[in-house]
């Protein structure tokens, strides 16, 4: 929205603020910018929203087929062992005297899990030779070690008196161990990206109408299109790198609304559409929260 003001100030009365005329393609350079920004929104959308599907598939696969997907079978268990040896050495250096009872419990958990990991990974050459139920145990040990370590560093950073270097090393070993449980096979990514691609190509009309015509009183013009796209692509890309799942929809729709306001002030918005969008946004989290929670409890009650 701010960007829109800047653009407007620099290019007064330029033709990019005119509403597009029917059936006529815009001048080449405007067209190039619009296509480019659409491309980057699509790309960043894929890298953020597509990932959510990948995460879901992994929850399913690990839940139903833990024996096959609990650990990244393509990785070398020897590395897991050597990493864990290093973790063991480093946690021995920690000073436990000043820890609170709660932190000491975390410390003990880390110790215990590290020992079990060492015991089971000491003499295996590949994960295939590990019995199915043991693989899930290994996964559990890795996850619990990681979480307890996070907690320990969050609450007792001063008390454990590790040197800066040792702390960094320890964190990187734990992080590398996590890659054994946090992974996605290539075919999962392929499956999700194909679905997303197909979904894109069908059924887009309803929403296009809302974004294009119903948010503002005038249909969006070239500058509005480009600005809201640029802002959206940028914001989403940053969030993807940070590992934050954000909403493409919120970002882009707000971008369009913002550019409408910049153009002609707040009266340029269609109150009715904005209201229904806002209500839907507000109730999405609580409604899905309650519905899925009760459904879960209900299912647990009947099948487990």
């Amino acid at each position, binding site marked *: 929205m701010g960007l829109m003001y800047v653009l407007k100030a620099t290019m007064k009365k330029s033709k990019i603020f005119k509403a597009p005329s029917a059936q006529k393609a815009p001048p080449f350079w405007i067209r190039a910018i619009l296509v480019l920004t659409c491309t980057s929104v699509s790309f960043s959308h894929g890298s953020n929203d597509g990932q959510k599907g990948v995460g879901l598939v992994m929850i399913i696969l690990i839940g139903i087929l833990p024996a096959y997907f609990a650990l990244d079978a393509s990785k070398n268990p020897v590395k897991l062992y050597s990493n864990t040896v290093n973790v063991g050495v480093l946690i021995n250096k920690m000073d436990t005297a000043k820890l609170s009872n709660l932190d000491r419990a975390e410390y003990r958990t880390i110790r215990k899990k590290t020992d079990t990991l060492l015991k089971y990974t000491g003499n295996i050459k590949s994960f295939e030779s590990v019995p199915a139920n043991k693989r899930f145990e290994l996964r559990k040990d890795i996850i619990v070690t990681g979480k307890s370590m996070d907690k320990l560093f969050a609450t007792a950073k001063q008390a454990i008196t590790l040197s800066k270097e040792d702390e960094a090393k320890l964190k990187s070993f734990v992080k590398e161990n996590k890659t054994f449980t946090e992974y996605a096979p290539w075919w999962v990514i392929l499956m999700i990206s194909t679905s997303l691609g*197909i979904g894109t190509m069908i059924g*887009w009309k309803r929403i296009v109408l809302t*974004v294009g015509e119903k948010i503002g009183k005038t249909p969006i013009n*070239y500058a509005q299109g480009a600005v809201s796209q640029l802002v959206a692509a940028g914001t989403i890309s940053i969030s993807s790198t940070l590992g934050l799942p954000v909403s*493409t929809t919120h970002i882009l729709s707000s971008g369009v609304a913002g550019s409408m306001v910049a153009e002609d002030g707040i009266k340029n918005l269609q109150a009715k559409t904005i209201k229904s969008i806002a209500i839907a*946004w507000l109730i*999405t*989290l609580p409604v899905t*929260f309650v519905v899925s929670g009760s459904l879960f409890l209900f299912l647990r009650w009947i099948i487990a």
Partner: protein
Amino acid sequence: MLGLSTGLVFLLIVCLLFVCFFECINGFHDTANAVATVIYTNALKPRIAVIWSGIWNFLGVYTGGIAVAMGIVNLLPTDALVDQNMYHAISMIIALLLTAVLWNLGTWYFGIPCSSSHALIGSIFGVGVAYMLLPDAHNISMNWSKAMDTVLA
């Protein structure tokens, strides 16, 4: 097959189809956002625009890394992630998938550009909190810091 009973294999396939379906809806929800501007400004013909956008979405998922994917997985409480009981896992999966898909489909039907991410995140929290309400839940550890990050984002 895969050491599972036929019923479970069937369920697995249904669940995977559900996710694909969820992604499809997400595709038409959000791409609409991406292409609305080009279509309305006549920069591209609708058909070309959606195919173009579809291809770039595909590339985005394929090259995007898995940071966000793991962010989603880690929204669940640790206990739920390390629960070895398959039926617990199944109730969890069905509950969150069904909710997210229905909400998405509903808002798409009414043409509201609503967030599939929030639908999914809301469902995951719902399951997470419900999990903590269970009588046999011990060592409760909901991922509140991640939750706050997401809400603020």
